[in-house]
């Protein structure tokens, strides 16, 4: 496995890694947003008098 092929795999790996990290960030944000949305909806429906 000469250096040339090694770097090729490194390049493709890097591309997929960045994409993977971004997808994780998006799902984390999605979960946070859904939780916040439910909390705010509950807060508006029966405002704590």
């Amino acid at each position, binding site marked *: 496995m000469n250096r040339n092929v090694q770097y090729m795999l490194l390049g493709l790996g890097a591309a997929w890694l960045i994409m993977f990290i971004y997808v994780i960030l998006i799902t984390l944000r999605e979960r946070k947003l859904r939780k916040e949305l439910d909390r705010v909806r509950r807060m*508006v429906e029966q405002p704590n008098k």
Partner: protein
Amino acid sequence: MREKIIIGLALFAGALLAWNMNTIFTALPDELNQGAIYRIIYFHVPANILGMLGFGLGMFLSIGYLVTKDLRYDALAASVTEVALVYASIGLATGSIWARIIWGVWWAWDVRLTSWLVCWLIFGGYLMLRRAVDEPNQRARFAAVVSVLGSVNAYISYKSIEWWNTQHPQPVLSIRNGGGMAQGMEAPIWWNLLALACFSTILVMVRMRQESFAREIDTLRRMAHAQ
């Protein structure tokens, strides 16, 4: 309905990518003087194309917001710009790794690379600015201004390989009067571009849904405070 589109696109893109990867790795021979490393082009070029298109599209959408003051344009502009930034990151990373072999250095202060890094910094600032402003209309206005100013640099970067003689290769694709590639080698670039474009569409749709969540949260919060 959106779920089905996303799933459908994902399956199509996945299959296309798998098939294309197969042709790249098995059917195509190594390039005569670069060896196996040239295969990075199949991700480097499509990623940069999508990044460039994304920044340009983001600019037009931002102008759309400034004209119509409709927050949907702003949400789309933000989603498209964010996804474009991801692809620009992929372009920079793969380019740098490829350069390690061909030029022997991870980075060179070449016009093309520098201007693309400048775009990456500017649109990174664009996303940070969006997080720093609370009021949706003000955020949309400020983001639109940064997007338009930033795309001037994106255009400079796009044209840089034609205006100056750069260490970065001149246009290679046939459509930009390059035509430096053997016939069999160029086709997979376009297939990968299509596959990655589908993925980016999925990402934009997901981001758009998140933007509408954020918009609803903001409205409900303001209503709660106004009670």
